């Protein structure tokens, strides 16, 4: 049967961290609550939300760097949510991760050559000498001069270190790469260089990306479809263009208005949203956003809105839309 259209499918995924006091679990930090989404082959799904919305935990759960409380993760047709570390090992080849902090994502005591070839060692791909050539090829691909192969991470700039991280991630020709805030720590000019690199790699090798970030401009640029998260729930999921002019969920609208855009049309100077993020341990009842939503109805306080398809490919979790 033809290769399946959907590469990664997340179904009703929940991830709760027990809060331990004197050995007994007293409550849970409900980081990810009942999230369902799909990523097709070669596609980039943007995952956006503010800190504490569970986007990082969702990402880690998708590639099983943490175990799953309940719900399923189907990767390339196989349910990987309950696999043991050993069973996961061969699958690691197909899914990789790129990190945010260029300084703590590379082992300071290893050379660039070793860092990039490490996944090859673990997956024992290529012989020793072939690995060297593969590493040099990857460095070229990612815009790094291969002559630096024996240099140390502390001898590179932030942008270059991010390129090393990318080279390491694509070394094993993965089908899916989770990008967790890959450019947030970089300056604007370097940011665009790395974004272009990621998009070039995607067009050349057909890798699928899950692109996590709190910077909407960047996410908007790279993704075909975008999911907006709030307190561990998907509040809106749609094609990129929908977010430009047909934003439905109140939180999404507030989020986009809050971005300081370069331009001088008399934007409203007032902050679109007030108050602080509620604590993830005791979540608000009903719709989690109802405590800060300007249009709250009594129904919002009691009934949890499910993700409805209000028009093709456009899902919203809100009673009023």
């Amino acid at each position, binding site marked *: 049967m033809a290769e399946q259209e959907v590469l990664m499918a997340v179904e009703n995924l929940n991830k709760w961290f027990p809060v331990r006091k004197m050995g007994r679990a007293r409550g849970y930090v409900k980081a990810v609550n009942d999230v369902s989404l799909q990523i097709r082959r070669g596609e980039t799904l943007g995952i956006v939300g503010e800190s504490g919305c569970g986007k990082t935990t969702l990402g880690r759960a998708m590639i099983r760097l943490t175990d799953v409380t309940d719900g399923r993760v189907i990767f390339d047709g196989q349910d990987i949510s309950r696999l043991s570390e050993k069973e996961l*090992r061969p699958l690691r080849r197909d899914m990789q991760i790129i990190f945010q902090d260029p300084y703590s994502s590379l082992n300071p005591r290893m050379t660039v050559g070793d860092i990039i070839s490490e996944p090859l060692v673990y997956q024992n791909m290529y012989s020793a000498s072939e690995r060297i050539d593969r590493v040099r090829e990857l460095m070229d691909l990612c815009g790094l001069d291969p002559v630096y192969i024996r240099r140390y991470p502390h001898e590179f700039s932030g942008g270059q270190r991010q390129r090393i991280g990318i080279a390491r991630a694509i070394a094993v020709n993965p089908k899916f790469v989770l990008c967790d805030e890959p450019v947030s720590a970089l300056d604007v000019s370097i940011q665009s260089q790395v974004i272009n690199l990621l998009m070039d790699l995607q067009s050349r090798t057909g890798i699928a990306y899950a692109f996590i970030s709190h910077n909407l401009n960047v996410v908007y640029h790279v993704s075909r479809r975008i999911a907006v998260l709030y307190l561990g729930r998907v509040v809106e999921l749609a094609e990129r263009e929908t977010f430009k002019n047909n934003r439905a969920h109140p939180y999404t609208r507030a989020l986009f208005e809050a971005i300081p855009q370069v331009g001088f049309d008399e934007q409203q100077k007032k902050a679109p949203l007030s108050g602080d993020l509620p604590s993830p341990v005791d979540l608000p009842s009903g719709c989690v956003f109802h405590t800060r939503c300007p249009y709250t109805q009594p129904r919002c306080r009691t009934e949890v809105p499910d993700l409805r398809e209000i028009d093709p490919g456009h899902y919203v979790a809100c009673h009023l839309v």
Partner: protein
Amino acid sequence: MSIKANANVQDAAYTSFYHDAFVRLKRDKIAIACLVFIVLLILVAIFAPLIAPYPEGFQDTSAILAGPSSKHWLGTDEFGRDILTRIIYGSRISLSVGLIAEAIAVTIGVFLGALAGYYGGKIDAVISRIIEIFASFPHILFAIVIMFVLGTGVINVFLAIGFVGWTGIARIIRAQVMQLKEKEFVEAARASGGSDLKIILRHLIPNCLSTIIVVVTMAIPSDIMYEASLSFLGLGVQPPVSSWGEMISMARKYLRTNPTYSVFPGIALVLTVLAFNLLGDALRDALDPKLKNL
């Protein structure tokens, strides 16, 4: 330069990181002085038989408790043995105590510390309790018991001191590994299928090396002093082997008539301990990424 096979890429790489640290170290005059002193001490210890004016046990019965003279530059002890010779041979004991005892302490300490730090949970609880038990144990009893079980003799002194010192290192390594395992490059290793053991060996322990080096250089002086106090209690090395600690305790009787007998080994002990302490400081600054003086 041609890219050699992966293996020696590894070796060349390691030295060059420590090469940077060495460059930083070179700028610190005191550190270099200490390093030279320690290297000298090691040479003296190795070539003791050639350097020492008399054989180790030689007793010059004509010059008992004599003061410094042309024949005996630093004088003689109650058996007529030449003090300078004893100090030279004594360096062997003091240095090997430090190195061997620390070797034992480091292997145990790093192993248990890394396990506790990396796995956490039950394993961490058990190992931490073991650390606390042995840490709250009076060292003296521990050393004496080990000496009895294994019998007296130089090697057992080293074992005794080594077994006592590991709790300190275990605690430091445990704390460091706990911090390191949160770092993203460890998550990256796990994401590409690295086994726990490989992660500990390739990522965690190399990053603890600079702490281990600093802790060891700081611990060697206390081991040397510990051997001295064991000798002071009469549980140290057996004659004719000489150790600075034993000399100081034997010399105590003659403090009024031959102060040199106790002063010179005392100076040797203090200088060696000083050299290791200062070197330890300098190494910490040289190896420590967040350099304080910048």
